[in-house]
C-alpha cells in the first residue's frame, strides 16, 4: 500500500497542479484573447511559442530551465538580484516550469473558445453601451465557458502528469519537489513494485476519469483542441 511519502507526493502534486492551473487561467486568458483577436504579424510566432511544449520533450524544457534558473542563467541572475536566490529545487521553480509546460493546454482551448464567440456579440454589447471590461465579463466569459472548463481541466491534469521537467529541476526533495511521477520512478528503481502499482494505477484511473468527464461535458471543445 501507499505510505507517508506517497501521500506527501500526492498532496504536493495536487498543490502544484492547482497553483499552476490558477496562474494559467490568470495569465493565459489575456494571452488567448489576444491570439484570438489580433491581426498582428506576431500572432503566428506567439502561437507557435505557446504550442512548443506540445512537441518538445519535457527533458528539453527541463534542461533549459535548469540552465536558465542556475546562478549563471538569466532567470537565476534576475532572482538572485532580487534577493530570492535561485529557483531550482524549489516549489516556486516547479511552478514556473510547469506554467510553461502546461501553457498550450489552457491557452489553446481558450483561444478556440474566444474565436467561436466571434465579433458579433461584442459589437452588440458595444452598441448597448457596455465597456470592454463589462463586455468581457458579462458576455465573453459566459459564452466561452466550455473553453475555460476544458482549459482548466486539461491544464490541471497535464501538470499532474509532469515528469521530465521535475526530474531535471526538482531534486526530488520530500514535500518540496517530490511529485507523484518522480515517486513512481523511484519506486520502480528501488524495485518497490507494489507501491509503484498503487500510484501508477491511481494516476491511470485519475487521468481516465478526468478525460471521460471532459468528453462527456464538452465533446466539441475537447475535439477543438486537437485540430
Amino acid at each position, binding site marked *: 500500500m501507499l505510505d507517508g511519502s506517497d501521500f506527501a507526493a500526492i498532496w504536493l502534486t495536487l498543490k502544484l497542479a492547482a497553483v499552476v492551473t490558477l496562474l494559467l487561467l490568470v495569465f493565459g486568458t489575456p494571452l488567448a484573447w489576444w491570439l484570438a483577436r489580433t491581426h498582428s504579424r506576431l500572432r503566428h510566432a506567439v502561437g507557435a511559442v505557446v504550442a512548443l511544449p506540445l512537441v518538445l520533450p519535457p527533458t528539453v524544457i527541463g534542461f533549459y530551465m535548469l540552465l536558465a534558473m542556475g*546562478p*549563471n542563467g538569466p532567470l537565476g541572475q534576475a532572482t538572485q538580484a532580487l534577493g530570492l536566490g535561485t529557483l531550482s529545487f524549489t516549489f516556486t521553480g516547479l511552478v514556473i516550469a510547469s506554467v510553461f509546460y502546461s501553457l498550450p493546454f489552457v491557452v489553446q482551448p481558450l483561444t478556440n473558445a474566444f474565436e467561436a464567440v466571434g465579433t458579433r456579440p461584442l459589437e452588440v454589447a458595444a452598441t448597448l453601451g457596455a465597456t470592454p471590461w463589462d463586455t468581457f465579463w458579462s458576455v465573453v466569459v459566459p459564452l466561452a465557458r466550455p473553453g475555460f472548463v476544458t482549459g482548466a481541466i486539461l491544464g490541471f491534469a497535464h501538470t499532474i502528469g509532469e515528469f521530465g521537467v521535475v526530474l531535471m*529541476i526538482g*531534486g*526530488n*526533495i520530500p514535500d518540496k519537489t517530490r511529485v507523484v511521477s518522480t515517486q513512481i*520512478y*523511484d519506486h*520502480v*528503481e528501488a524495485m518497490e513494485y507494489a507501491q509503484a502499482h498503487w500510484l501508477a494505477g491511481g494516476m491511470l484511473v485519475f487521468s481516465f476519469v478526468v478525460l471521460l468527464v471532459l468528453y462527456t461535458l464538452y465533446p466539441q471543445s475537447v475535439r477543438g483542441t486537437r485540430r
Partner: protein
Amino acid sequence: MKHLVSLVAVLAISGAAQADEVQVAVAANFAGPMEKLAAEFQRDTGHKAIVATGATGKFYAQIRNGAPFEVLLAADDETPAKLETEGHMVAGSRFTYATGRLVLWSAKDGVVDAGGNVLKTGTYRHLSIANPKTAPYGAAAVATLQKLGLYDTVQPRIVQGENIAQAWQFASTGNAELGFVAQAQVWRDGKFTSGSGWIVPATMHDPIRQDAALLAKGAKNPAAQALLQYLRTDKAKALIRTFGYEV
C-alpha cells in the same frame, strides 16, 4: 524459390558472421570511461559495443522485462548478484570491473578544501547527491555525511538526482554549490578537470564495487564474451584507472 532459399541462407550466414555487436547497459558513472573503452575495444577486436547509459535500478527492471542487453556494467555489486539468483545472467560470470571513488565537488575553484571542511563551514544552499535508495554513490554520500556527524545538519540542503549523472549535472550547472559525485565524472589523468574537489577517503563508506555481468541474452554472443574479457586486460584497467577508479 530456389533463389529465395539461397538468399535466405546467405543472409543467415552473413548474419551469424556479423555477430560482432554487443548491447551493453552501462551505469551512468561509467559513461565516460566506457566511451573510450568501446572505441579501443572496437579497434583491438573488431567487435562493436553499443552502449546505453543510465541508472542501474532502471536497467535491472528493464532486463527482467526482456530488454535486449547482453552485458551489464552495474554501479553496484548487488544488482548483478540479484540477476544471477533470478537466472537473468550467466552464472559465475560476474566480477568487479572497477571500484568507484566518491568525491565532494564544486564547479567553482577554491570552494572545496582537502578534507571537506566546507561541509561544516561553507555557506552553500544545496548539496546534490544521487538517490541513496537506488544509487550506491548516493548511499556512500549519506554514509560519509553520517560518519562526519553532519547528516542531520546538512539534510535540509540535500537535493537528489535520479542517478549520479544528475547529481553531477546539478553541481556542474551551479544549481547546487556542492555535490557528491563519482570521481570519474570530474577526474582525468591525475587531476580534477575543473572546479575543486575532495576525494573522500575509502574508509568513510562501504566500497563502491561495480560488477559486470554477462546477461542471459548475451550468453552465446562472442562479442559479449570478448568485451568482458577485454575489461580484465591490463590495457583496459590502466584506462579505467585514469578516470579515478581502483581496479
